[in-house]
């Protein structure tokens, strides 16, 4: 099994290949923002050449992209028209927003513009009841008129959310047909009952319209990528990372783009969890620092946190997860915090105060030291001036320390009246403080003490900053996995193909476990599960009867359960096998147990089912175990025993520089020192000691005598 994993970030495109022998090859190229496939193909070609693999031999192609996120954040999606039931045209404008933090005390706060302007919001006469019964048939003439208005509105995609469509999708489907027939061929018309058929019209509507908004952009991109890969001779199926850590086939990723919003960041958290698990570490903070942003995610007991309501553009900090503040998207996503600070973030002086970001030099022109026309100083320039980076650079080109110094001198040192090196050190520190904010959000802000966690460094710039960041929080252990510089892409190699489908299924548990009425209800639930399973299998491009396929798909069925009269349900897994009275009995018992555990209330009142949910997982084929790490031939410019002048403790000192590839298992590293590899440079400050493990990972530990209880001064 040969897998290619690729991660297109704002600055760098990372490509990782695992061969049939389990050996890993990596390449890092600059992202080509005008057409990301250009940089991607360059990286692929390089990695294939390095591995000696023919394009046609690749079995699987896994892709993480920040496209969906960026489209939403930069409002670059296609203009969407929104159609709902008559009487509810104001649904999106009214929203369900909460006023949080500073907004609570602002008597005339500015609400965010609705995700679809009122001028492109339409309503049609029709009505379905909560039971699914049709109260008012869809007015097809009116629907036709609405379609013509939409055609004239400049909309390039349509989102439909009619009341109670989760219970009966007939009107939505018919309306979608009628509208699609009157719009230019290929215009996406997305119905909420297809995207997220659950009760709660507002969240179902926003989830649907975000799909419509991003879908066409994603589809166009993936079509182009598929064609380019074919041109190169790579015919393997393309899988795209979804926000919850599984992967989707490309065709589906376009239709359900909303599931890929956290595609790239999720990969980093999954990678951290996997790297930790391999070493028996289950409480981890992933720290993923690339060129443009830094993300932090929490892994507790080996499991990344998953949120079921992601807020796009939400207020209340860093990625905006505060409920009720942005546009909610009801799809599972890995919970993480993001800040706009990375290696490419531009340092500038604002009225005497040094600031870093949020503007990034990106891949073009890039940091000044890339010598690609950039004149603004970045975090990478500061790191280079401080001696933390190898002028040999990141594989593709050399770094120019002179240009970095000039940029810092002009834009930071001179306005501040400081020396160039002091200015560079200040940029490094301010960047650390900003990235600390992301870690702060997932730990301290939630009352969680980060000091008991291991910080995992991923992404090109992370190894340079990770130990200093750990010091800020009193974190005593840092894990730098092999190929940390392309850590997210490496995490993709092992992602499972997965799809989740759910729909409302309301029935008292007592009915399901009773005599004759129970048989009908059990048959109905079985039918719903089968249907969800078939839909999910279809999503993943699997044949309906999966028994005869080579790989075994794992089907996880669960139901929402609550006490009759309550609103919030627990998700309880169903035991394997047929849906029987006994199975429902077990589910009810499990619900009682979980309820008691969560709330301390020992209650055995009648319970009811709310939702049927299926997660279909096609485990990634086991790849050959990576061979034990052995020191290997270097391909970059570090000579054994080399020393470099680097800034530590307020002065330049000569510190040892080692190539990671030279370090055998068990090699001891003592700070201050620097460990370089082609995609990253690991900074080991004074007070830290590291060892290289069997897989080539570096485990850094603060020496107890030097460990500080709080932030470093």
């Amino acid at each position, binding site marked *: 099994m040969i897998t290619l994993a690729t991660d297109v970030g704002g600055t760098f495109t990372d490509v990782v290949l695992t061969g049939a022998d389990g050996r890993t090859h990596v390449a890092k190229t600059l992202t080509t923002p005008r057409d990301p496939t250009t940089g991607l193909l360059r990286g692929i070609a390089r990695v294939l050449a390095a591995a000696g693999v023919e394009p046609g031999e690749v079995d699987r192609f896994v892709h993480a992209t920040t496209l969906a996120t960026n489209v939403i954040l930069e409002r670059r999606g296609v203009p969407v028209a929104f159609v709902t039931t008559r009487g509810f045209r104001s649904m999106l*404008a009214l929203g*369900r927003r909460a006023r949080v933090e500073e907004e609570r*005390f602002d008597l005339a706060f500015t609400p965010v513009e609705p995700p679809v302007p009122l001028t492109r919001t339409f309503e049609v006469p029709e009505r379905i009841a*909560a039971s699914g019964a049709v109260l008012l048939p869809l007015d097809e003439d009116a629907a036709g008129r609405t379609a013509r208005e939409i055609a004239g509105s400049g909309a390039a995609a349509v989102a439909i959310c009619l009341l109670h469509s989760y219970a009966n999708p007939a009107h939505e489907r018919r309306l979608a047909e009628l509208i699609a027939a009157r719009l230019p061929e290929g215009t996406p018309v997305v119905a909420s009952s297809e995207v997220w058929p659950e009760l709660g019209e507002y969240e179902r509507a926003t989830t649907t319209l975000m799909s419509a908004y991003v879908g066409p952009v994603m589809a166009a991109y993936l079509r182009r990528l598929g064609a380019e890969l074919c041109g190169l001779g790579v015919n393997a199926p393309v899988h795209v990372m979804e926000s919850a850590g599984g992967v989707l086939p490309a065709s589906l990723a376009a239709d359900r783009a909303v599931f890929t919003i956290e595609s790239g960041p999720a990969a980093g958290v999954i990678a951290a969890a996997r790297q930790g698990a391999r070493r028996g570490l289950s409480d981890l903070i992933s720290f993923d620092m690339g060129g443009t942003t830094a993300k932090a995610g929490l892994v507790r007991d080996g499991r990344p946190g998953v949120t079921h309501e992601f807020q796009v553009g939400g207020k209340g900090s860093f990625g905006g997860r505060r409920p*009720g503040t942005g546009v909610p998207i009801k799809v599972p996503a890995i919970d993480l915090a993001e800040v706009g600070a990375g290696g490419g973030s531009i340092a500038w002086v604002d009225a005497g105060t040094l600031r870093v970001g949020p503007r990034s030099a990106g891949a073009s022109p890039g940091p000044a030291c890339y010598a690609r026309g950039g004149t603004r100083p970045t975090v990478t320039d500061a790191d280079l001036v401080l001696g933390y980076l190898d002028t040999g650079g990141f594989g593709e080109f050399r770094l120019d320390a002179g240009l970095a110094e000039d940029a810092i001198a002009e834009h930071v040192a001179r306005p501040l009246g400081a020396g160039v090196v002091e200015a560079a050190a200040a940029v490094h520190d301010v960047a650390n403080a900003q990235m600390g904010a992301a870690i702060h959000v997932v730990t301290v802000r939630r009352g969680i003490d980060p000091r008991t966690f291991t910080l995992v460094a991923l992404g090109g710039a992370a190894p340079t900053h990770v130990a200093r960041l750990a010091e800020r929080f009193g974190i005593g252990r840092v894990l730098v996995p092999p190929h940390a510089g392309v850590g997210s892409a490496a995490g993709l190699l092992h992602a499972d193909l997965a799809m989740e489908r759910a729909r409302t299924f309301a029935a008292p548990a007592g009915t399901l476990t009773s005599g004759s009425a129970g048989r009908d209800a059990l048959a109905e639930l079985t039918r719903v599960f089968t249907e969800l399973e078939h839909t999910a299998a279809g999503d993943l491009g699997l044949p309906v009867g999966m028994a005869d396929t080579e790989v075994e798909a794992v089907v996880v069925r669960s139901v929402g359960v609550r006490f009759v009269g309550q609103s919030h349900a627990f998700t309880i897994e169903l035991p394997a096998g047929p849906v029987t009275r006994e199975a429902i009995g077990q589910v009810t018992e499990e619900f009682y147990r979980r309820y008691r555990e969560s709330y301390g209330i020992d209650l055995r009142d009648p319970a009811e089912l709310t939702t049927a949910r299926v997660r279909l997982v096609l485990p990634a084929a086991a790849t050959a175990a990576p061979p034990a790490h052995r020191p290997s031939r270097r391909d970059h410019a570090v000579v054994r025993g080399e020393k470099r002048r680097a800034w530590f403790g307020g002065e330049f000192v000569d510190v040892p520089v080692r190539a990671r590839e030279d370090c055998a298992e068990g090699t001891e590293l003592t700070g201050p020192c620097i460990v370089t590899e082609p995609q990253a440079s690991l900074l080991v400050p004074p007070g830290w000691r590291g060892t290289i493990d069997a897989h080539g990972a570096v485990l850094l530990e603060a020496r107890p005598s030097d460990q500080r209880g709080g932030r470093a001064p």
Partner: protein
Amino acid sequence: MSTPADPTAEPTADLTAEILRNALCVAAEEASIVVVRSAYSTFIVEGADAAAAILDAAGRLVAHSASTALIQCASLRSALPYVLEAFPLTAMAPGEVFLLNDVYQGGIHANDLLIFRPVFVNGAPAYFTGTLIHVADLSGLSAGGMASDAADVLLEGVQLPPVRIATADGLVDDLVRVLAANSRTPEKLVGDLRALIAGANVAARRLEEIIDAHTAEGLARGVDGYLTHTERRIRAELAALPEGTYMGEYGLDDGRRIRVAVTIEAGPPGAAPSGAHVVVDFDGTDEQAASPVNSGFSQTLGGVMYALRCFVDPSLPMNEGCFVPVEVRMPRGSLVNCTWPYPGGGRWATVAAAEEAIFAALTRALPERGVAASGILQGFSISGTARPWLHMSFDLGGMGASAERDGPDATGALFGGGRNIVPQVEPIEARLPLRVEEVSLIPDSGGAGRHRGGLGTRTVLRMLEDAQVDTRGDRLRRPPSGAAGGAAGRAGGYYRERADGAREPLDAKATRQPLRAGEALVVETSGGGGYGDPAERVPEALRKDLADGRVTPRERT
């Protein structure tokens, strides 16, 4: 002045102290989430009308749930001393839980139940966790506790002075049976009680975990540091306001007025923590009425704290430190501090008016911060005639415009809430014999001005069974006024829509008005007042309003 919470802003802050503070806030937040998730009343579970707090044995507010109504934390804080008066600390046993709803002892009205659970340190109660929700029904003239003809507190519902509702052995069954027997929806009431206790238990468990991690002394030190730090910050903020005494007033629909004098004084030098303090004096406010328009002192206090906090750093945490520098004088027997047996259930019109009065006063101190008046929460409840079911909800009025901005639509100025407290249509219809036919912005309802007031909404609820309705609105006869030459917002109202479509007005404080199956209740909220001369409105803003339908062409001419 208004910097958002930024962890990097205080690089010297001790990490341990910060973790502790956040852990306390998260514990309170979790408690409120537990209450919402395990409660039964639709009003709570769909509208998230629950609050939770952590207090210490001295009655100081340490932390509260931030995602819920801010005003409620003042009631939890106000009520605890009365619990301690009835049940001295020394007599408390682990596992005990206390309950009250008495408006004269820090409560709000019959349906708002307050729960307190002591947390023991070295064998003595050192902290309390508190939770609060509006339960579906606890007797009174109308289901849901919304009767506007309740002339005294006893007609509002069952009165609960501080009582013991649970011990280490579980619920006190005798009391629970009495409460259940006095509710039109006994199962929901008992379920909601369990939810309240569950929330208090979860917060107590978290507090015990914090003590395990930080030691009792560490927690006590952390709490002291947190409260002192907050007090120091708010005093510094208050010191930035111009010293002096500023008067303001605002009226209710019935003509009664709330009058206030806000005095900002520099603090005595050398006092620690030093800085300004504020006196808010409601002297001159009209007398209490024999109808539920009054406010108990705890809700007025919450309103005062909210209003003042609109003029200081919004990132300040809400804890005892905020209360210390503020002296609130609420004349007994007035609208803002009712005495037995005057009812307090309809207090939000009065609290909102008290807030507008404070805004008016502080606008004199800081003219550039002026805002026009806002539409407020418009409550209503619908209950079944033939069988017991209940739908209670608020709709929200448009907010007033300011010198800088249009007023936000249908958000409700009070308490810092948002639209997230209004239930969605599908859950309502899935649970209740109601059909929601319309929820829409009302065009032209925002007061005209250089900046337009926020729009009100219209909600149409069709009865599928015979029902009766109670309403509780204000600013309907005297709609939210404009400021600096802006026009008032459009007055909202309540209406009965007959099956043939004919619409007839219901009183703003209607009680048990019949609505037959097939008839509908129409709730329209008031628009916010406009700010500045309408003739100065920027043409682009007007064009956008016309395109969006917020303003109609007819109205424009």
